[in-house]
């Protein structure tokens, strides 16, 4: 696969951005891309992707990621690099096209287009008004907010209003407890018009799938309603040691929300371990979070989940291997049958994860319930 970026002259405009000129430059880029080339260029636009990032953003990494995204979901990308701390107000834009030789059809190219806007100082707050006219009509608008969302942030709010879906990544939360609680509030308050996606939630999909599949088996199903012990081991996040990783909290939030486990004020902290007691009717469920050994490249991710029932002596386990390449599952009922398997765990690239989120247009109710449930857990913890 090859990719090429064809930047054009910057359209520098201290008073604002000349949208007409940017559109003309993009059109010219398309003509050039088609000219003389042996293969034709296929221009496809299935979405707008607005990316909000800080100036420290690794551009090379982002380009690599956008190459992958273009392959899955070509369209117009609007990158906003916001330097909020800059003393002077500044707004600059330039355009580029991004071409991918489709992996199979060899000669054909899939192309997307990009406008990069650099905003500084006071211009950051108004940058949304420069983005709005650049949005391609009739196709959905996604906002990838590469930061921790704050409800009072004007730019965030403007961009959310402009977008059909907001993508965040709770893995980067530096204070998972507070940030997740805030996220729950943001989602709760904007239910009318905001759909949320979380890359970190996407990282849980294969886990959730394996966990859920235990109960697809009719014989195991009754044990689901008897679970009273949950153990989650996770790689503690480097930026927030002492806090439970967002990944682990979301997993438990999901179980609690879907299985109707209610938080109680009962929370204990023993050294590094944290233990919650949840309630389902009369049944108490002990949920323990335990930091696992720190591993390279797995920061903030879960390593194992064990679910047990003391009434029926069942144990269900999902865990990842040392090299983070394989997932292992097992189910044991008393001393009887233990069925397990090992399946490979393809660590998806960030680009593939983002592409997955960009293919979703409907509300992810399960995610929203999980986040709300984490919000309640944290609240119970903060009260105890």
């Amino acid at each position, binding site marked *: 696969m090859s990719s090429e970026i064809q930047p054009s002259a910057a359209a520098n405009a201290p008073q604002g951005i000349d949208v007409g000129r940017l559109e003309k430059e993009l059109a010219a880029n398309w003509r050039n891309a088609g000219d003389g080339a042996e293969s034709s260029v296929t221009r*496809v636009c299935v979405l707008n992707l607005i990316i909000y990032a800080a100036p420290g953003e690794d551009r090379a990494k982002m380009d690599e990621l956008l190459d992958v995204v273009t392959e899955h979901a070509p369209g117009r990308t609007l990158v906003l690099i916001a330097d909020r701390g800059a003393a002077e107000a500044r707004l600059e834009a330039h355009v580029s096209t991004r071409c991918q030789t489709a992996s199979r059809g060899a000669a054909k190219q899939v192309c997307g287009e990009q406008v990069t806007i650099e905003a500084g100082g006071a211009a950051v707050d108004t940058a949304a008004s420069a983005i709005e006219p650049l949005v391609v009509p009739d196709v959905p608008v996604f906002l990838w907010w590469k930061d921790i969302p704050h409800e009072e942030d004007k730019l965030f709010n403007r961009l959310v209003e402009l977008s059909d879906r907001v993508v965040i990544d709770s893995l980067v939360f530096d204070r998972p407890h507070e940030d997740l609680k805030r996220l729950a509030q943001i989602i709760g308050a904007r239910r009318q018009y905001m759909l949320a996606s979380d890359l970190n939630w996407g990282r849980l999909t294969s886990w959730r799938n394996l966990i859920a*599949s235990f109960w697809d088996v009719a014989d195991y199903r009754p044990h689901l309603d008897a679970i009273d012990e949950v153990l989650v081991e996770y790689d503690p996040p480097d930026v927030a040691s002492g806090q439970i990783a967002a990944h682990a909290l979301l997993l438990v939030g999901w179980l609690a929300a879907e299985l109707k486990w209610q938080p109680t004020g009962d929370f204990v902290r023993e050294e590094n371990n944290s233990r919650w007691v949840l309630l389902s009717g009369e049944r108490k469920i002990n949920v323990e979070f335990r930091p696992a050994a720190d591993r390279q490249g797995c920061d903030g991710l879960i390593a194992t989940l064990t679910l047990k029932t003391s009434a029926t002596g069942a144990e269900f386990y999902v865990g990842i291997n040392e090299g983070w390449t394989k997932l292992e599952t097992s189910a044991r009922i008393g001393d009887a049958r233990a069925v397990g398997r090992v399946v490979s765990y393809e660590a998806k690239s960030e680009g593939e994860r983002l592409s997955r989120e960009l293919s979703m247009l409907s509300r992810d109710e399960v995610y929203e319930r999980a986040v709300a449930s984490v919000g309640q857990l944290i609240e119970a913890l903060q009260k105890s």
Partner: protein
Amino acid sequence: MENPLRAGVRLERTAEPCVVVIFGATGDLTKRKLVPALYRLVQERLVPAEFAIVGAARTELSSEEFRANMKEAVAQFSEAKTVDEEVWESFAQGLHYLKVDIGTSADYVNLVAKLDQIDRERGTQGNRVFYLSTAPTLYAEAVRQLGQSGLAKPKEGQKGWVRVIIEKPFGSDLASAQALNRDIHQHLDESQIYRIDHYLGKETVQNLLVFRFANGIYEPLWNRQYIDHVQITNAETVGVEGRGGYYEKAGVVRDMLQNHVFQVLSLVAMEPPASLNSESVRDEKIKAMTAVRPFTPERIRAECVRGQYGAGSINGKQVPGYREEEGVAPDSATETFAMLTMYFDNWRWSGVPFYIRSGKRLAKRVTEIAIQFKDAPHKLFGSEMMEQMTPNQLIIRVQPDEGITMRVAAKVPGQVTRIRDVNMDFRYGASFGVQLAEAYERLLLDCILGDPTLYARTDMTERGWEIVMPILEEWASTKAEAPFPNYEAGTWGPQATHDLLEQAGRRWRRP
């Protein structure tokens, strides 16, 4: 009981525990397609851990040997071309082999015992898929034996299910297809029978439904009012590939037209189904096929063309003629090419010809549907402006390079008005850079999930034969007159097919 953890938009449907029994486990299809597809389904976690495969055939093999063979096959034929040791080990634990001669009742006693043992050890709960990947002559016998050994029905008092997948070809004419249906219905309900047509597992074929019924703009045009005619081309570049013996008895009408091409045709011609459930879709398909105008000897002579390739060259390489292929009689009258002109006698399609052609050793491997719209009703632009112009066409490409192209007229920039055709192209490969799933993977999963939408129903298999029987009979009775070989390998078939369209003032599209 419902599984509350399955809620939501992200988790794919997964199947129930089950055992897949493959009859013909030492054969080509098993190693090339079936086991690699099952391995992928396990990898993608689309089937649960409580899953097992039993390979069955006459060859003496231990399960160990079978596993080793299959490991090699997966490495060779899967996309990744490698297998991870640990992952394979886990998969192989559920992989077994049992020597079974389809005609020997005693072998089914062993099979019953083996399946019971697997149910106990792996929690497969009595659910079974039997995949008949053997010679077609054995299908009925296999089903009869399954019935007699009690394997065709769930065990007494058990909730499990039993499904049987039957490979192609399904019969060799109407009578044999009816007989086969009758035989298997003695032991199986229609809901248990999955007749495979791997064309239906292809992404673009499935997309036809979406394209027609999810886009409001096409449906109003999809009729005799706006459509002049439809061309369906199903072209292969390969010859008979060592299967000359089989092909001599089959020919292209049996091998391709009557099943695959008719499936595609029915999706183009059908009325909108009331819902997407398997019965509604298949009801509409058969309804459309019921409206196909019967072929009479006169129509066959006037509107159909048969062909057989002579020597020629494909992609620059010399290839022998059909009669020179291994296993083929030097004076063979088997057709390797056929073109039919079909009409649907119903309101939607009255008077609209569907030109269908399918053949081996043609210029290019391609399957496509071309919808040719009528001319604009009033010629506003003079002929000098429109010299390059043809009516609007919509092309749906099924393989390779799946995609959709719309041909529209546009003005060439300049002071004078000159009009040219431009293609608006949508390619799956180029628009979504993702790999499309293998047809067998999708079909196997659907069967395990109990969804027969993409499988052929009894009535459809029989209707396919009913339509082509007069052609097969007419051509058989006039074998001596067949002007074979009548097309050169590497061309688009006999000249007569081009003449036929020309007489009607039309032309074959060059795909």
